[in-house]
């Protein structure tokens, strides 16, 4: 195959391994032998020694060794390296031949077998005549051997066998065929490896020894050959460091060779081989930079060595192969763990390889002219079917002088090569290399490089006439160039794509590419655009377009017939092209006039079109689709017979549409879902350019941004530039339909703040300013939704203000019908709100109605509404405080059973408005009133802000049977209303729970009956009542202490007994001596049986002081006279 001529031979590319031949094994019929062979072959992992094994028959003929040259004096080499040499040493000439022989030390027929073995060894030796190949013998034994030195028979027989076979002791091995076969095999192969190493070492020595016979004039080729061989043997020996060294020497030697046209190919071939080896070893030694440096040097040295100009394509092919194989080596090294970087990765080498393949193709096209017939006899035919030396010409093998021996032969040879080159599938090769490169650049984050290579691939497919694939690739990358705004490159790609589409007669693609090439992003010249536009028009008329320039003439004629078929085909002449993601030659932007329209206004929208092509373009239809398709009918314009819709290049054309929204759509959004422009006609071909949303294309966003930047800088708004500036046109793709503006007024009047629990009146006045009758006026009033959820529970709204509403009243009264409202009419309503808790609340008053109006001659019923809100604070109207005091107005912390005490209440108004307290009452639970009829002391009292109203009740707690000493008192009820409100507004009852009291029982109760005042020197009778409230007889000792203010009569000191539950009275007559407040004589009481009760505890029941009036003077005459 011509293509594979440049492939590197596999024996060059493989890893050289020592070759060891195994003989005497019958792997087909002998199971033991088969097992041994398998142990050698199977599982050759990296930890096993690098040997390639082969099973050969015992009498195998190894390649003959040529007789050793004794002198090089007359020897003229015919080439650098023989084509068979590497293979010979890899696969044909073993480093070691191992003879396997079944023989146990105690074999009964030892003698016979020993001689048979010796014969076999001899046969092997004979066929290796002249070679340094080692021979070793392995005895396959059934018995496990004894440790060395113990088996005397064995050592004796071993040495006799060695003698018989002429073997050194080191070359005789024993392989017991027992359990541990693999272990034995590994030991064996390690020993073989050592022998092989020795063999290759001697080979290296042997080649080196030739050097002294060589001279620089005639044996230049041999210098290279020998260095190469030494390096190769070193590799076989696994001495890669030295191998690299010798290859490097060989490389510099190959460039020292006298180069001329006839041997250029041979030199380059060998240089390429050696370079390959060097790079491979550098990567293997993990010195990738050395590999890259070597490769660069290699390319620098060789790229000018073109050789024969008539076969220049060969050079390009060779260069391409150099880059490709380096790329492969690099890639392989990466797979083994090397890290590559963005700027140094195999992709560049594949790319370069592709470049040279492209050059090869071009050169081939130039040099290999069609017409000539292949020469006969075939000059490329050799007798052996191949070449003797790498890189030589088949028609003059071995020829090393500057001029070709036969000019005629040379000519036919070149012709044959040129003709062969013609059949090479260049595009295929290029595409394969490019796609390798693409894969690499993808990996190393070079998206643009990847795109560029894909463009090249596309172009190559185009050249290979695979237009479908070409278009697929070009189409794929076009988008990248479009978004990156590289118009020059985009235009170039589009041009190629257009050619493909033309040659395929793919109508839709053709239209798309034309459309974009005519657009503003295209960098084509006007005349080009004019030509394309003309073609586009032809396609729209269903005619065959003119061929694209630079198309292959034969392809053009094929394309023309394809087009004719297309044109003849009826139907499928309608295309819809989504142009949003392109940059088409017709630009489209649309907007609603406003982001929202009232339902009684017509909705207006504008579509702006602009053509960028050189000649005017005619359209036949423009249609806008909206999210509600019912409106679509209003947004269509079609060209009628006379007036056509045409776009003048560079001028913006505006189309206005308006329609009336449906009342059901109030509150909804109307969106433009698409815009369609129809080019062509039903008679020819219809092309619908379709934009999504409100138009715009791949470039318009950026243009708008730039325009806004510039206008921001210059303050050039739309206002200052009345003429339509395309870039500044802002698309408005949706609009909101909102309800008609209500023409009514809603007024609220109320007196904040609201008082807790009151029926707070909010009066609402609705006045119509409509010109027609507002029908079905409805009021929704109450707590505005969306506030704290608790407010809903504690707010009650009603229309009935005559009584206090209960908790079932809702927080929001929906849709209260208010009837119709004539123009100018006024309507009032009161809404009552009761707030059970304090704090702010927002109330909503929503008045809705419907009205008939006319929009653009259409009758519609509009629903309008007006909202009014009020934030109202609720406060407590008054604070109530309660205290218990004794009859002496001393605060009580506990209440004595069955002894009267006082309950005092204070009502402190905190309302900003005056309050009327209608009444108050007590609801007692345990207590009883000490006064027969409880009467409110606050009836109709008006409290201003900050004023306080107090009441006092005398109560008594009857003796209780229960042991509980804390008792509930009851409730205090207050009825009140706001002062300004009318008298018929309901009273609000506020209930205050009275505090609990702690009860105590007293064993002895004492109280005194005495007048409210005394008079000096008048008798003041005081009666003390002493009650025994215990179940025991109480002994009471009583004494009256003398006082300066009083004289008294009665028992000064007494001791008496009081029966349980009975009362004793003590009467004293006090005689006041001084006027004013006087302390009564102290009563000392003690109860010997009840020590806790003494004078001190009892004294609280008794009055302490009394007011003594001065002695009344008789109005006698003397005093009158004195006056």
């Amino acid at each position, binding site marked *: 195959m011509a293509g594979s001529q440049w492939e590197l031979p596999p024996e060059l590319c493989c890893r050289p391994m020592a070759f060891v031949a195994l003989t005497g094994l019958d792997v087909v019929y002998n199971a033991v032998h088969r097992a041994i062979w398998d142990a050698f072959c199977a599982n050759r992992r990296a930890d096993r020694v690098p040997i390639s094994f082969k099973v050969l028959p015992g009498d195998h003929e190894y390649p003959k060794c040529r007789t050793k040259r004794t002198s090089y004096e007359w020897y003229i080499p015919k080439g650098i390296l023989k084509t068979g040499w590497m293979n010979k040493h890899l696969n044909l000439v073993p480093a070691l031949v191992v003879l396997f022989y079944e023989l146990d030390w105690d074999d009964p027929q030892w003698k016979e077998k020993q001689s048979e073995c010796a014969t076999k060894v001899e046969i092997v030796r004979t066929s290796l005549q002249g070679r340094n190949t080692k021979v070793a013998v392995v005895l396959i034994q059934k018995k496990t051997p004894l440790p060395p030195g113990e088996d005397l028979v064995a050592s004796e027989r071993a040495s006799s066998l060695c003698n018989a076979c002429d073997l050194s002791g080191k070359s005789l091995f024993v392989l017991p065929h027992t359990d541990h076969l693999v272990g034995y095999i590994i030991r064996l192969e390690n020993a073989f490896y050592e022998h092989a190493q020795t063999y290759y070492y001697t080979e290296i020595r042997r080649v080196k020894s030739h050097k002294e016979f060589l001279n620089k004039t005639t044996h230049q080729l041999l210098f290279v050959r020998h260095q190469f061989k030494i390096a190769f043997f070193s590799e076989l020996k696994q001495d890669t460091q030295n191998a690299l060294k010798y290859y490097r020497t060989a490389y510099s030697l190959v460039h020292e060779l006298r180069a001329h046209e006839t041997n250029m190919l041979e030199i380059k071939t060998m240089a390429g081989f050696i370079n390959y080896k060097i790079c491979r070893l550098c990567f293997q030694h993990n010195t990738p930079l050395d590999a890259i440096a070597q490769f660069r040097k290699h390319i620098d040295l060789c790229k000018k060595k073109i050789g024969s100009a008539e076969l220049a394509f060969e050079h390009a092919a060779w260069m391409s192969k150099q880059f490709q194989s380096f790329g492969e080596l690099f890639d392989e090294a990466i797979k083994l763990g090397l890290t590559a970087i*963005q*700027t140094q990765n195999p992709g560049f080498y594949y790319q370069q390889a592709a470049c040279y393949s492209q050059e090869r193709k071009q050169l081939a096209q130039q040099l290999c002219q069609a017409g000539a017939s292949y020469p006969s006899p075939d000059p490329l035919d050799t007798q052996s079917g191949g070449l003797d030396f790498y890189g030589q010409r088949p028609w003059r093998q071995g020829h090393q002088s500057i001029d070709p021996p036969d000019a005629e032969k040379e000519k036919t040879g070149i012709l044959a090569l040129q003709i062969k080159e013609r059949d090479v599938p260049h595009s295929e090769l290029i595409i394969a290399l490019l796609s390798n490169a693409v894969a690499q650049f993808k990996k190393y*984050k070079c998206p*643009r*490089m990847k795109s560029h290579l894909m463009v090249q691939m596309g172009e190559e497919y185009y050249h290979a006439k695979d237009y479908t694939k070409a278009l697929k690739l070009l189409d794929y990358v076009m988008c990248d160039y479009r978004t*990156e*705004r590289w118009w020059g490159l985009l235009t170039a790609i589009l041009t190629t794509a257009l050619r493909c589409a033309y040659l395929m007669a793919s109508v839709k693609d053709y239209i798309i590419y034309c459309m974009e090439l005519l657009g503003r992003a295209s960098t084509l010249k006007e005349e080009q655009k004019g030509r394309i536009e003309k073609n586009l028009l032809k396609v729209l008329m269903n005619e065959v377009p003119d061929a694209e320039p630079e198309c292959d003439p034969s392809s053009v004629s094929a394309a023309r017939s394809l087009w004719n078929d297309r044109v003849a085909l009826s139907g499928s002449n309608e295309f819809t092209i989504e142009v949003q993601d392109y940059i088409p030659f017709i630009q489209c932007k649309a907007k609603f006039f406003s982001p929202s329209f009232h339902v009684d206004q017509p909705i207006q929208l504008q579509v702006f079109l602009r053509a960028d092509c050189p000649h005017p373009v005619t359209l036949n239809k423009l249609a806008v689709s909206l999210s509600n398709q019912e409106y679509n009918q209003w947004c269509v314009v079609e060209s009628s017979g006379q007036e056509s819709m045409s776009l003048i290049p560079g001028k913006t054309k505006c189309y206005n549409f308006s329609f009336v929204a449906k009342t059901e759509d109030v509150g909804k959004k109307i969106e433009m879902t698409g815009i369609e422009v129809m080019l062509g006609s039903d008679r020819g071909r219809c092309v619908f350019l379709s934009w999504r949303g409100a138009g715009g294309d791949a470039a318009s966003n*950026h243009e708008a*941004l730039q325009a806004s930047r*510039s206008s921001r800088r210059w303050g050039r708004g739309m206002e200052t530039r009345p003429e339509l500036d395309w870039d500044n046109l802002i698309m408005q793709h949706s609009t909101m339909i909102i309800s008609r503006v209500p023409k009514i007024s809603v007024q609220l009047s109320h007196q904040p703040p609201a008082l807790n629990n009151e029926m707070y009146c909010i009066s609402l006045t609705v006045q119509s300013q409509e010109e027609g009758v507002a029908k079905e006026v409805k009021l929704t009033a109450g707590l505005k939704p969306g506030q704290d959820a608790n407010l809903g529970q504690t707010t009650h709204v009603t229309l009935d203000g005559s009584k206090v509403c209960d908790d079932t009243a809702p927080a929001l009264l929906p849709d209260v019908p208010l009837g119709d409202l004539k123009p100018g009419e006024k309507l009032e309503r009161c809404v009552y709100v009761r707030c059970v808790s304090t704090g702010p609340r927002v109330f909503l008053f929503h008045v809705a109605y419907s009205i008939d109006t006319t929009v653009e001659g259409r009758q519609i019923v509009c629903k309008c509404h007006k909202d009014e809100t009020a934030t109202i604070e609720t406060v407590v109207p008054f604070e109530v405080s309660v205290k218990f005091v004794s009859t002496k107005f001393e605060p009580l912390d506990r209440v004595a059973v069955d002894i009267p005490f006082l309950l005092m209440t204070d009502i402190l108004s905190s309302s900003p408005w005056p309050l009327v307290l209608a009444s108050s009452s007590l609801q007692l639970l345990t207590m009883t009133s000490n006064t027969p009829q409880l009467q409110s002391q606050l009836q109709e009292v008006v409290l201003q802000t900050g004023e306080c109203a107090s009441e006092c009740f005398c109560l008594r707690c009857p003796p209780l049977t229960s042991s509980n000493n804390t008792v509930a008192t009851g409730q205090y009820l207050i009825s009140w209303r706001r002062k300004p409100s009318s008298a018929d507004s309901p009273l609000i009852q506020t209930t205050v729970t009275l505090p609990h009291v702690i009860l105590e029982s007293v064993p002895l109760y004492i109280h005194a009956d005495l007048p409210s005042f005394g008079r000096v020197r008048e008798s003041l009778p005081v009666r003390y009542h002493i009650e025994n409230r215990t179940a025991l007889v109480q002994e009471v000792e009583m004494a009256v202490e003398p006082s300066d203010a009083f004289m008294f009569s009665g028992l000064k000191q007494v001791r008496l007994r009081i029966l349980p539950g009975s009362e004793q009275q003590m009467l004293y007559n006090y005689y006041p001596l001084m006027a004013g407040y006087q302390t009564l004589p102290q009563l000392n009481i003690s109860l010997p049986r009840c020590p806790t009760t003494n004078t001190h505890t009892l004294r609280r029941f008794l009055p302490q002081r009394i007011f003594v009036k001065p002695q009344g003077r008789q109005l006698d005459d003397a005093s009158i006279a004195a006056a």
Partner: protein
Amino acid sequence: MAVCIAVIAKENYPLYIRSVPTQNELKFHYTVHTSLDVVEEKISAVGKSLGDQRELYLGLLYPTEDYKMFRKLHNSFTDVMCNPFHNPGDTIQSKAFDGIVSGMMVQTG
């Protein structure tokens, strides 16, 4: 000397691109465009390391370049940007800038 000079916007589109007219213009455009891969990578690396951001020269992208040349071009570019009538982001149309670029390009013919 230079064969092609390009000024690229931060959104990666060309603000200015000019190459030696005798050669394949398209090829240069592709080369400039593909070298943006490396520019992008280098700029993102600068952002990451927060290194000396005053260093505006990114170094070798892959063909050889000259630092001094960058300075000269950058100064001229700064002049263009300082022009109050220039809108950043628009392509550069300046005679002075053209002149500087021409001076840096290969003198052919």
